[in-house]
C-alpha cells in the first residue's frame, strides 16, 4: 500500500511537472451519424462511435438522435462507426470512417462532425484467415513463402466461386509513407467513384468451385507444397483439397512458386491476369489489403485485360474494381507503425487489423458469438478459453473467447463475425490455423 502511495505521488509529480511545460486542452466533440438517404433504416441509440488519435482512442455511444459526444484532448483523429442491423430478413451493415479530423485549439463545442455511413450487406463467402507474414525458419531466418488464405462459407446456402477473383489493394503496404491515392483533401481519390485498385494482377479459378455452408477452401498463395520438410514451424499445403495460385507463365519467381505439390489437382491451380510487372504476386507480408470480388457482366480475363479500367500511381498498375463487386476484404496495418493509412473504402472494410510479420502470426476472423450460439445444439460443442490471441505482444484476440478451430473439430458450426470492419471482425492469431506441429 505504501508502495502504491509512493507511486501515485510520483505519478502526480510527473503530471504536475509535465503540466508546467505543456497544457493539454480537452475539447467537447459531437459526432452525428448520417445514414444513406436511400436506406430504410435511420439513426438509433447505442451505436458505438470511435475516435482514434495518435496512440489514444475514445468510444462513445450514440443517443436517440444518432449523436455521440466525446471529451477528447487535442489531436488528429480518425472518426469511425459500425452499425449492424437487420430489416425485413436482410442483414445490413453501416460503416463510416473519416480520417484526419483535427481537434485542435480553436475547436468549438458547437461543431458537429457529420459521419456519413455507407450501407453494405453481409457476405456469403468471407475471408476466414489470411496467413502471409512468414514463419521463423529452423535457423535464424524467416521463411516467407508459405502464404495462404482460407475462404469460408458463412451462410446457410452453398456458394459458387465461379468468377471469384483474388486481389491485393494498391499500394501493397499500408505504412507506405506517401500513398498517392490520397488527394489534397486527405481523402482517397477513388472514394467518390466507388472503386478499389486491384494492384498488379488478379487470380481466378479455372472451374466453378462450390463451397457448402460452414465449409472452407484453402488457397496456397505461394509454395503449394509441404513446407514443413525444411521449415518445421511452417504448413503443409500439398493437399488434394487445397488450391494454389500457380501460373508459371505469368509469375515465375522461383522462391515463391516452386512446382506445386503433386497432390494438388491441376484444375485447382488458379490462373492469373497480370497487368502490372513483377515475377511474384505482390501480396504484402507486413500489411496487405486483400479482397475477393466477383466481376459482373464480364469475365476475370476480360476485366483484367481491359486497359480502359487502368488506374496507375507511381509503382503500381491496378484495375478499378467497383465496390459493388467486392465480396469481402480485410485491411491490415503494421503494428507499431505510425504511417499506416486506410486503403479500403468503408463499405468494404471500415476498420483494420494489426499485423506483425516474421513470427508465424496469422490474421484470423473472430467468431460471431451470438449467431454461433444461436444455432441449435451448437453451444455445447464450442471450445472456449481461446489461447491463440496476441494481446501479450500488442496484438489482438478473439473477444468471444471461442476457439473456432477446436470447436469445428468438435463438430460445432461457426458463424464468423462479418461487419465489414476488420477492427471488429479480425484478430492477430499467434499461429497459422493449418500449422500442425
Amino acid at each position, binding site marked *: 500500500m505504501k508502495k502504491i502511495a509512493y507511486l501515485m505521488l510520483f505519478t502526480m509529480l510527473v503530471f504536475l511537472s509535465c503540466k508546467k511545460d505543456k497544457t493539454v486542452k480537452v475539447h467537447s466533440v459531437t459526432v452525428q451519424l448520417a445514414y444513406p438517404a436511400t436506406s430504410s433504416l435511420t439513426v438509433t441509440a447505442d451505436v458505438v462511435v470511435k475516435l482514434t488519435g495518435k496512440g489514444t482512442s475514445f468510444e462513445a455511444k450514440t443517443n436517440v438522435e444518432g449523436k455521440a459526444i466525446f471529451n477528447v484532448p487535442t489531436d488528429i483523429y480518425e472518426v469511425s462507426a459500425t452499425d449492424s442491423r437487420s430489416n425485413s430478413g436482410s442483414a445490413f451493415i453501416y460503416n463510416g470512417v473519416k480520417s484526419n479530423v483535427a481537434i485542435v485549439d480553436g475547436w468549438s463545442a458547437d461543431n458537429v462532425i457529420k459521419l456519413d455511413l455507407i450501407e453494405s450487406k453481409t457476405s456469403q463467402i468471407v475471408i476466414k484467415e489470411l496467413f502471409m507474414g512468414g514463419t521463423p525458419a529452423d535457423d535464424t531466418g524467416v521463411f516467407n513463402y508459405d502464404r495462404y488464405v482460407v475462404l469460408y462459407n458463412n451462410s446457410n446456402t452453398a456458394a459458387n466461386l465461379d468468377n471469384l477473383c483474388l486481389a491485393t489493394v494498391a499500394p501493397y503496404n499500408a505504412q507506405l509513407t506517401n500513398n498517392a491515392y490520397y488527394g489534397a483533401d486527405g481523402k482517397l481519390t477513388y472514394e467518390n467513384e466507388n472503386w478499389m485498385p486491384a494492384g498488379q494482377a488478379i487470380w481466378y479459378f479455372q472451374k466453378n468451385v462450390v463451397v457448402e455452408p460452414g465449409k472452407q477452401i484453402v488457397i496456397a498463395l505461394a509454395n503449394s507444397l509441404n513446407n514443413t520438410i525444411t*521449415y518445421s514451424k511452417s504448413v503443409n499445403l*500439398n493437399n488434394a483439397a487445397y488450391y494454389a495460385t500457380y501460373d508459371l507463365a505469368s509469375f515465375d519467381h522461383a522462391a515463391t512458386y516452386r512446382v506445386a505439390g503433386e497432390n494438388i489437382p491441376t484444375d485447382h491451380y488458379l490462373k492469373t491476369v497480370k497487368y502490372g510487372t513483377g515475377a511474384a504476386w505482390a501480396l504484402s507480408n507486413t500489411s496487405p489489403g486483400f479482397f475477393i470480388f466477383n466481376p459482373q457482366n464480364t469475365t476475370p480475363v476480360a476485366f483484367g485485360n481491359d486497359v480502359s479500367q487502368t488506374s496507375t500511381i507511381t509503382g503500381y498498375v491496378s484495375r478499378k474494381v467497383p465496390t459493388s463487386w467486392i465480396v469481402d476484404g480485410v485491411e491490415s496495418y503494421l503494428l507499431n507503425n505510425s504511417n499506416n493509412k486506410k486503403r479500403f473504402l468503408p463499405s468494404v472494410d471500415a476498420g483494420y487489423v494489426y499485423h506483425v510479420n516474421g513470427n508465424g502470426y496469422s490474421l484470423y476472423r473472430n467468431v460471431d458469438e451470438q449467431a454461433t450460439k444461436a444455432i441449435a445444439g451448437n453451444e455445447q460443442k464450442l471450445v472456449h478459453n481461446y489461447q491463440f490471441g496476441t494481446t501479450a505482444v500488442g496484438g489482438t484476440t478473439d473477444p468471444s473467447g471461442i476457439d473456432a478451430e477446436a470447436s469445428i473439430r468438435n463438430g460445432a458450426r461457426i458463424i464468423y463475425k462479418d461487419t465489414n470492419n476488420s477492427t471488429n471482425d479480425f484478430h492477430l492469431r499467434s499461429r497459422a490455423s493449418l500449422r500442425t506441429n
Partner: protein
Amino acid sequence: MSVFINFFDETKRTEKKRLLLVFAVLIGFVNIASAQFSISGKVLNRRNQEPVEFAIVAVPNNGLWANANAKGEFIIKNIPAGKVKLSVQYLGFVKREYEYTLDKNLTGLILLMDEDNLTLSQVEITAKKGTDLATSFLMDRTALDHLQMLNVTDVSALLPGGKTNRSIHLATTAEQRFEINGANGERGNPTFGVGVEIDGVRLSNNGLRDQSASTTRVHGVDTKNISTSNIESVEIVTGLPSVEFGDVTNGMVKINTRKGISPYILELSTRPNTKQVALSKGLNLGGNNGVLNLNLDYTRSISNLASPFTDYKRNSLSANYNNTFNKKNGSPITFNFGITGNIGGYNSEADPDLFVNTYTKLNDNVLRANFSTKWLLNKSWITNLEASGTLNYNDKLSETSNNKSAPASTPSIRTSTNGYHVGEIYENNANAPIILIPPGYWYEINYVDNKLINYNGKLKANWFKQYSNLSNNLMLGSEFSVSGNNGKGVYYDDIRYAPTWREYRYDQESFVKNYAFYAEDLLSIPINHTILQLVAGIRSDITDINGSEYGLVSSWSPRLNAKYILWEKANKVVSDFNVKLGWGKTVKLPGFDVLFATPTFRDILTFAPGTTASGETFYAYYTMPRTRIFNPDLKWQSNVQKEIAINMNIAGNKLFITASQDKTSNPYTYQTDYTPFFYKLTSQVNLEQSAIPSVNRIYTINKYTGIVTVTDKTGAFPTETLSYADMYTFLSNTKYINGSAVTRNRITWTVDFKKIEALKTTIRVDGNYYTYKGIEETLSAYMPNSTQMMANGKPYKYIGFFGGGANSANGEMSRSVDMNFTAITHIPKLRLILSARLEASFYKLSRNLSEINGKQRGIVLDNRDAYTPSTQQTDIYGGDRFVGLYPDYYVSLDDLNVKIPFAEKFLWAKDNDVALYNELAKLVQKSNTNYYFNSSRVSNYYSANLAVTKEIGRFASLSFFANNFLNNLGKVYYRGSGTQASLFNSSLIPVFNYGASLRLKI
C-alpha cells in the same frame, strides 16, 4: 586592341620569311645553328647552405637538364644563346624559375632552394594552373596535406567549382572513381574515359568483367587502393592531353609519388570512420648509389561507428629507386624503378549484425611496377631519349557467402549444350546437365575472380632546336600496351550447392594488345614582344584483339594546341596576358565486355512435374547457348574537344578562364535483339493421368525433341510417353553498338585576388558553368517481360521498335553553376595556414528529353491512365504533363517481316478491335509522373568547410578539417516536382565530418 594591330602589322612585314622558316623547321630540312653556352653552379639549401644533392636543374624550353651532385654542383651545356628559362626543383623544396639572357657561359651560379613549409611567404593550398599547353590543374603536397584526403579522388574538389567528396569512409563495395570531363550517370561513359596514371603506370578497367554477363561495365577504374600518403602531386588535365596519352576521352589524372631524399615522415590521420598510419623515408644511398624511397601505409575504414566490423583496409608498401648516371660529360642518364604492393580490400566477415556466416569480401590487392630512363644525348639530331615500362596487376577477387534454404528441390543448370535436359540428384550423377539441390539449408559461397593485368613499354625521343628566338621541340614516340584479365571468372566453393552456373574463365580470353605511334611538335615563335606557341600532334592506335571477331582495329587522334603569350610580367595593370586554343580528338578503347563474345544461356522451363511429398521436383529445361552478337560496324568511342583559355594577371589579381566543348561520338552501348523460339512444355497436367506412382518414376527427356517419358523403377507399369503443349517465346540477345553523340560545354574560372597583406589573407573564387546533353536516337526493339501474357493465355507476340529506345525519355540535359569561395589566411611567423571555403550551387537544372532528329518524340496524355494523345496539348515540355510514347512500328510473330506503323493501327484498334488495342497498349511507354519532363531546378544550396594546418617547428605539423562544419540542415526546393528535401544526409552536400592529421619529420 593596339596589341593586336601591332601584331598584324609586324606579321605582314615578316610574314613570308617567318612562314618559310616555320615550315622548314617543322619538316626538319634546316639545321639551324646558333651560338651555344653553358650554365653551371651550385644548388644550396637556403636555410643551412648545404648542397641539395639530386636537385634537378633544367632548361625546359630546350629539353636540357642536369642533376646536382653531392656538392650541389651542376652544369648544363649547349644552351642556345638568348633568353633562357632555368628551373630548379627537388622533393621537399619549392620549385624556382629564373630567366637569363645568355650571351656567354654562366658559371658559379648559386641557386638557393627554400624548404617547402609554412614559413614561406607564398604557400599554395589550392589547385595551381598547369604550365603545359593543355589545360591542367596541379595539386602539390602542401595542398594535399591541407586537404587531408580520404581517397585520391578527393582532389577533384580543388578543380574550379569542384565539390567535396561525399564519402566519409571507404568501407563499401562502391567504387571511388574520378569524374573529370563528365559526371557519373551521364551518357557516353564519362568515368570510363578518364585516364589515371601513377608514375606513368596506367590503371585500367578495360579487362574487368561483370558477374552478370548481360550487363555492361563500362565505367572508370576504382582508386581506393592508392595510398594517399605517398603522393607528391596530382595533376588533372581537363584540356587536351599530349598525344603521348591514349585510351582516354574524358580527362587525364597524373599522380606522382614521392621521389627524393627526405627525412622519416610519420603521418597519423584520424577521422571518425577512418584511421591511417604512414611512414616514409627517402634514403640517400651515398656515393653514386642514388636514392631509395620507401613508404608504408596502413589505412582502415569502417562503415558503421556503432558496429566497427565491416571495413576496408589498405596495407601498402612502396619502394622507388632513383639515380642519375653519366653526369660528368653533360649526357646524364636518369634511371627510376618503382614498385608498389597493396594488400587489402572490403570485408564484412567479422560483422556480427549479418546473418551468421554470411559476408562479402572483395580483394583489392595490387602490384604496380614501373621503370623509366631518360638520357640527355643532346646531339644535333636528338636531344633526349626516354624509355619506360610499367606493370599493373590488380586482384579483385570477390567472395560472397549467402545463406540459402528451400522447401523443395532447386534446379541448378550446368549444361552448356543446346537441347532439352532433365534434372538429377548430385549423388546420382555429379556431372548431370541439371543438378537438383535437395530441400534444406546450405551456404552458397560465390567467387568472382578478376585479376587485371596491364603492362606497357614506351620509347620516346625529343629533338629540340633553336634558331634565334625560334625554338622547336619535336617528339616521336611509340607505345606497346597490353591489357588482360587473368581471373578464373565466377566459381563456387561447393559445386554441389552452386546455383545455375557455367564456367567461363576470363583467363582464357586473349589479352588485348595496342600499338601506338605518335608525333608531336611544339614550336615557339616570338613575334615582337609576344610569343606564339603551337603544338600539333597525331596519334595512331592499332588495337589487336586476338581471338575476337573485331580483329585488328586502328584509329587516329590528331590534336592541336596554340598559346599566344601577349605579354608576361609587364609593368602595366594587366601584367600577364595569354590566350590558348585547343582542338583535338581522343579515343577510348573498348572494355572486354564489348570485345569478347561472352557466352550467356537462355534456359526455358519445359517440364515441371508436381513436387513430391518429400519435396523432390524433377525439372527439365531447354538450354540455348548464346554469344553476344558481333557488330562489324562497331567504332571506337572518341571525343573531340575544342577549348579556349585566357590567363591574365590584373594588378596582382590572377584570372584564368577556360571555355570548352566536348563531343563524345560513338559511345559504347548495347541493344537487344529478339528472335522467336518454339518448344514443347510438359507439366503436371500431362502427368496427372500417369499410372506409375510418383515415388517409382524415372523421368527422361529427349534432348532434341523434348518429349518426356516416364519409366517405372519397379517395372510394374509400362513406360509412358507424355503429351505436351507447343509453346513459343522470344529469345533476347545483346549487341554492342555505338550510341548517339553526347555534348558537354564547360566554362571554368579561377580568380586569385591579390593578397590582403594586413589580414595575411588571400581570396580565391573559382567556379564552373557546365552543360550536358545526351540523346540516344538508335532504333531499338522492345518486348514486355517474357511473363507478360496475352488475353488468350499465350505469350506476348508483338515487338515494338522505338527510335531512341523504349523509355519515356531518350535523353537528358543538365546545366549547373558551381562556385567556391575560399579565404586562406597564412601567417608565416606562426607557421599557420587556415582556410575557410564556401561551396555553393547557384544553378542546378536538369530535364529529361524525348527527341529524335531534333523533333519531339512522344505524346501528351490527358491523364496517367490514358493511352491516346490529348486533344488539348501537344507539347510534352509544357509542364505537369503525363507523356506516352508509341513505338515507330511493330512486328508480330505472325509475320516478323511486316512492319506495321504503330500509332495508326493502335488508334484504329481502339474503336475497331478492342482485343488488339488492349494488347498493343502493353507496348506503350508512359512517364511515371506528370513532372517527368518538367524542367527540374534545384534551389541554391551551400556547404562550408574549414581546415587548419599548423607547423610546430620544422619537425611536426598538425592539420584539422571540418567539412560542412555548419552542418547545414536547410532545405532545397525541387521545382520540377514541387517538393522540398532536407540537405541533411542528402546527395547534394557532404554530411558534417571532421578529422585531423599529425605529421612528424625526423
